[in-house]
């Protein structure tokens, strides 16, 4: 789960990582109150208010390139904050609704560094990444000038040691006075990484301001979804993320809904991540495009299968549906009955269905009694061929 910037900044604050203070606005009414009372509206323990203008108003959406899209604006006074907020709140950037704004002090930026701790799947350890070329796309830097990025694997039983930072300071020719504050920030960032089960904790840029202080000016935190049971404080923020409504709806039924391509007109339902991927690969190889996919997981009942089909078919882009089931725990007859129950949602749309495994015969019997827009096939390759016949892309 990728946190919004303001939530990342709050966690930085909790872990004694100096960040620029800010206040969060989620409605124009709150904004009025705030500006009048000179009191913060943040729903957390950081107190902040606008003390000095100009300030920066930042749209809280999970996408890169916010700045270019007008999501970061400067305000000279309270009127301008209101004006900008009116424009931004509720509007969209790259299809994502802006539900919250973060208003922060304008920082006198002298230098911009990059700092992150990420989970390195190759070495199976946390990886500390640092560069004095911050504030820009780090992947670009990594590609163009890899020597400007230092990567230090962290032994999970050892953690951050000060010699690592001494090394960085020498490598990048950094003024030694930053050794101690940088060490503290890295240590704290790593503690946050570990304690919050993070896949990524990133500060970009880590700024040196006019007074020579280090400040985390923008942050990204990605928390392992599988760990959320032990992070109630994070879990409750999930709904505020600007996610696809269908993803949220599917999650309520314990399904995984994955939007694939905006141009796609095929929906895929299957019972397992591998099959979903294989199905999409084969469809795409034939020159067709998948709009979305839904993973039933194991052992779905007819009732739940019905809901899954409805979720996919209510997507207006979906003209064709491929159901590809290899049943172990999942029973083919339950799948077939689920499709039966979803008849209204299906309407006249073509459904290609392939069932294999547990209770296949019983399933096929039900399917064969359906109207002829439901086409039964015996393998995924046959299924893709059948799709191609009806493809209108």
């Amino acid at each position: 789960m990728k946190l919004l910037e303001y939530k990342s900044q709050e966690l930085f604050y909790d872990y004694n990582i100096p960040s620029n203070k800010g206040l969060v606005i989620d409605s124009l009414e709150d904004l009025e109150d705030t500006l009048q009372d000179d009191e913060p509206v943040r729903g957390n323990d950081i107190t902040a208010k606008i003390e000095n203008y100009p300030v920066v108003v930042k749209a809280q959406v999970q996408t890169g390139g916010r700045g270019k899209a007008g999501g970061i604006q400067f305000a000279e006074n309270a009127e301008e904050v209101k004006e900008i907020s009116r424009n931004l709140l509720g509007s969209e950037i790259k299809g994502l609704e802006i539900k919250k704004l973060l208003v922060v002090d304008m920082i006198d930026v002298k230098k911009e560094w990059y700092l992150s701790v990420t989970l390195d799947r190759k070495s199976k350890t946390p990886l500390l990444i640092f560069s004095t070329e911050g504030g820009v796309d780090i992947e670009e830097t990594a590609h163009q000038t890899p020597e400007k990025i230092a990567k230090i694997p962290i032994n999970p039983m050892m953690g951050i040691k000060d010699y690592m930072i001494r090394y960085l300071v020498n490598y990048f020719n950094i003024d030694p006075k930053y050794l101690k504050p940088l060490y503290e920030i890295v240590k704290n960032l790593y503690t946050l990484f570990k304690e919050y089960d993070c896949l990524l904790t990133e500060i970009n840029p880590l700024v040196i301001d006019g007074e020579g202080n280090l400040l985390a000016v923008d942050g990204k935190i990605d928390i392992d979804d599988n760990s959320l049971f032990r992070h109630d404080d994070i879990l409750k923020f999930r709904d505020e993320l600007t996610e696809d409504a269908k993803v949220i709806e599917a999650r309520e039924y314990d399904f995984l809904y994955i939007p694939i391509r905006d141009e796609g007109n095929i929906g895929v339902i299957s019972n397992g991540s591998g099959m979903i991927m294989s199905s999409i690969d084969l469809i795409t190889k034939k020159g067709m495009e998948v709009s979305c996919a839904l993973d039933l997981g194991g052992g779905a009942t007819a009732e739940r299968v019905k809901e899954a089909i409805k979720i996919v078919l209510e997507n207006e882009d979906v003209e064709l549906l491929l159901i590809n089931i290899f049943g172990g725990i999942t029973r083919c007859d339950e799948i077939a009955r689920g499709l039966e129950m979803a008849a209204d949602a299906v309407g006249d749309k073509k459904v290609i269905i392939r069932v294999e495994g547990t209770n296949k015969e019983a399933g096929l019997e039900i399917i064969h009694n359906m109207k002829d827009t439901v086409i039964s096939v015996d393998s995924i390759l046959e299924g893709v061929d059948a799709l191609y016949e009806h493809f209108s892309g």
Partner: protein
Amino acid sequence: MSILVDENTRLIVQGITGREGKFHAEQMLEYGANVVAGVTPGKGGQEVLGVPVYDTVAEAVEKHDANATVLFVPPRFTKEGAFEAMDAGLKLVITIAEGVPVHDMLEVYHHSKKYGATVIGPNSFGVISPGKSKAGFMAHRIFSPGKVAVLSRSATNCYETVFMMSNRGIGQSTAIGIGGDMVPGSPFVEMLPLLEEDPETEAIVLIGEIGGSDEEIAAEYIKENVSKAVVALIAGKNAPKDTSMGHAGAIVAPDGTGSAENKEKVLKEAGAYIAESTEGIVDILEEIL
């Protein structure tokens, strides 16, 4: 004698009194697996399916000389369960659960290396040596004994492949669920030396997918050390970037790390046959065997 699991495996089922644990213990027993004991804290002294239950793995190991365990415990208890098993001296720990926190697995991974234990999974169907034994929840009816080993991050893609293999007369020596998580207890590369040595294995099927670098690491190893034929499939070529495809591990990083293209490229360079579909794997196998 097969790798990891065979007729000599004296298996413990951790979580045997749970719904899943009991169901699959029964399946395993039916298949002929030598399930010698179950473990559920607080349920010691009971019997399930005629199998004695203990409170701790150590007791089960002591009393029954067990040498492997399969964990049917919820994801949040998988770390503790795996530690308990390794601490009791078990060198083969098979974990099933989907949804184990990756930081937990980091600990399990590094501990297992230190102990010299092999951890399979999590988010895995387990291990089966067809006709001999199984430890996991795979639909064993589709498997048949033979000479092709299957390693797979995905259960369903493995089933598809094995189903067609068996239908077309190509049996399996051992099938191993590497698991779909970011940090598998045993990535492909750690299974390859066992298969290269295994006299019952003639060819290796490697079903990978997008995300991580484990296929690339395997490719390096294959290039230098594997003489047997390797047929590989990489699922997820057309998955969108930076989006998890269901398996926690099946995600291409924003910088492109973990893309199917690179995996296929290096595997091909390492001498592996690249299949375009599960059916394609079987076509290739038919050709080369």
